């Protein structure tokens, strides 16, 4: 087991290195440069050259890359041009906020999705199945940013149950209650689509399992139906549900961008969009690296979890 985990971790190194090259090249090759973004209307060639020199962007590309990589390996991600603060501070702070949002949404969609899918499968073609299937279709079809906007209009502007945006109150205590009230709407809006997808796939995974012999045996033995479904069948179905959860975790993380913009959540998705528009090269690069590393490790965790459920995968 330890060897398997180590192998998977080592295989992540070339992947991450490849990502640094790609993200560096993309930022170097897209048109427009940070000096123009900083200077706006006043971007004369003379001024652009002066700013590039002061930002160290006049060096050849390969040297810029090596300097960046070398600094990064020592934990120095550089300074953001647009925000004038260390990239790592900004990225970690923002990533923390995204993890809170995406993590909550992920827990919501995993729990609700699997439960809804299981209920659906257990009552195939029953009223619960039909109701859930309808709700799932609705959930999958509504774009999350639109849903977010509608939630703001109803629950924040009209009913004033929740604050419109942000993560913390401008005044008042920063406690769990304050966080939950700010988190509720964005997390829910973000979870909806993934919940639908997970529910659908859980339903079919479970139906597949329910047709198998050991389920018939269990029922024949007289095991209680609740136990058949939730213990025997669901456990067997989890092997095919888990990878879906892994993929959906990725979708939730990337879907967070829209939600972060709509709800002004101070997360990394919104940070990256702003940074790209401002050509804040180091911030984009640092942010992408951290997010990519997270993706890679999340996939490793899913693989490991899967291998625990099904030892055949380990080889």
């Amino acid at each position, binding site marked *: 087991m330890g060897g398997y985990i180590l192998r998977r971790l080592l295989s992540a190194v070339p992947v991450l290195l490849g990502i640094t090259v790609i993200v560096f090249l993309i930022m170097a090759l897209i048109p*427009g440069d940070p000096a123009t973004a900083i200077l706006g209307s006043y971007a004369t060639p003379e001024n652009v050259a002066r700013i590039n020199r002061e930002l160290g962007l006049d060096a050849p590309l390969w040297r810029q890359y090596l300097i960046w990589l070398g600094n990064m390996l020592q934990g120095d991600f550089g300074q953001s041009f647009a925000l004038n603060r260390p990239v790592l501070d900004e990225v970690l702070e923002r990533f923390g906020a995204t993890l809170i949002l995406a993590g909550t949404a992920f827990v919501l969609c995993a729990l609700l999705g699997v439960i809804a899918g299981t209920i659906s499968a257990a009552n195939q073609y029953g009223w619960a199945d039909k109701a859930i299937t309808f709700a799932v279709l609705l959930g999958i079809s509504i774009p999350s940013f639109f849903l977010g906007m509608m939630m703001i209009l109803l629950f924040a*502007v009209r009913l*004033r149950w929740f604050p419109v945006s942000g993560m913390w109150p401008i005044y008042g205590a920063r406690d769990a209650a304050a966080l939950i009230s700010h988190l509720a709407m964005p997390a829910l809006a973000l979870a909806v689509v993934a919940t639908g997808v997970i529910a659908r796939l859980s339903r079919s995974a479970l139906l597949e399992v329910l047709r198998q012999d050991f389920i018939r045996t269990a029922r024949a033995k007289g095991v209680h139906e609740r136990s058949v479904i939730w213990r025997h069948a669901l456990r067997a179905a989890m092997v095919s549900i888990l990878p879906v959860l892994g993929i959906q975790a990725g979708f939730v993380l990337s879907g967070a961008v829209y939600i972060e913009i709509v709800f002004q959540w101070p997360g990394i998705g919104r940070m990256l969009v702003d940074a790209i528009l401002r050509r804040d090269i180091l911030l984009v690069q640092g942010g992408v690296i951290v997010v990519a590393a997270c993706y890679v490790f999340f996939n490793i965790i899913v693989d490991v979890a899967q291998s625990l459920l099904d030892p055949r995968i380990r080889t």
Partner: protein
Amino acid sequence: MSIGHLTRRSLLAAGTALTMALGAPAFAQTPPGVLVVGQIAEPKALDPAAVTAVNDFRILMNVYDGLVRYKDGTLEVEPALATDWEISEDGTEYTFTLREGVTFHDGSSFDAEAVKFNFDRMLDESHPYYDTGPFPLSFFFSAIEEVEVVDPTTVKFVLNEPYAPFLSNLAYPTGLIVSPAAVEEHGSEFGRNPSGTGPFKFAEWRPNEAVVVEANPDYWDGAPQLEAVVFRPITDASTRTAEMLAGGIDLMVEVPPVALSQFEGESYQLHEQAGPHLWFLILNAKEGPFADKLVRQAANYAIDKEAIVNEVLEGTAEVAAGPTPPAFAWAYNEDLEPYPYDPEKARELIAEAGAEGAELTFYVTEGGSGMLDPVAMGTAIQADLEAVGFDVAIETYEWNTFLGEVNPGLEGKADMAEMAWMTNDPDTLPFLALRSEAFPDQGGFNSGYYSNPKVDELLEQARRATDQEERARLYKEMQEIVHEDAPWVFVANWKQNAVTNDRVENFDLQPSFFLLLDDVAKN
């Protein structure tokens, strides 16, 4: 079925718990005496020398003062930290008498040494705090040869040539005076630990959440009415609108045109102010159909600017008449009339020039500073030009890419391009974008290669004149010629807008587009 039952019950319980936990407080209601402002982005820094965005200026103008400032409601300078000044006969020496007894928020005192420190830091590469930059807009002061401390309350600027916009550049945020002691203490972190002399002093910066400033009770121009101001960055315009409607902010800037109708009625007040902004089309006067003045004039007649301003922009802009925005009241030529919408006249001119059915390449941007609604405007313009017989192909670019295409010049690429400028002096835009010596290859912004020796001469003279009336006369003459030559299609002057709720009093927008809050009150 028991499963379904159990789940329904637990769902109900969870729902009830959630409602109990969250249902109680009604959110919104900002505290009295504290103004919460909905900004459009997170500021970069609170160091006036280091920033370029209007968004940052909105905070800075309330924390710092300059030597001079714009008179309320105008773009004319009046004393601020300097009480008086004298300009030498040849226009190269400006001697300022400084206000006495002013202290920075950090307790250090304001004097001639502090003024010298500020400008040397920006301009002198050997200054010990030059490395607290970069200072992107320092070229506003590139005419400064030397700053001399005559005595503690007198400071003299020696310029390398007469430069008439100097005073209004001092009123621009780049000229705001920072505390040398604070720069020495915080170094490159000064932008997050600012200290000035303004009506509000910096209290707290919570990244991506808020910048908080508190009243400075010792302000030399009278303590402000508010206890504090909170600047919240809310980048999405729809969310900003929702916050305003929900009461989470008291003042919202840059209301999107489509949201204006939300704020009709008693509980809100809409503020509008035309500013020193011009939205125009650069025409390629070097090659293609627009090399002919008649065709350029035809484009000005063909485009229905009223429709663009009223339909596309929902009345958030006014039709522009010429190259100088009317907000520069003292330098604006009142006799200038916008080109009327006259497709017949346009067709006649095109026929006279023999340019019927000419194919035009039109650069449009997706968005950008001061560009308003560029795609919708570009489409309307395309339709108007096609109506008089042109064949217009639009090419759309993201803003930074767009600048990278347009600023080096349109030659060989396009016949026309959208552009917008916001400036602080009537000199800036024509000097940088209409002179023969401002062609892109000479470091200017004359991307359409307009050249008229008379205009060059007038602009040079205006820059050397120190008398405002003389400058005004020169600018007015320049506007007439440029209007006739039509190197651009003059489209719109943007009206900045803002909404306040009914708890906010004494708020007015300024033509400078700065946000001045020292007289504002809130109950």
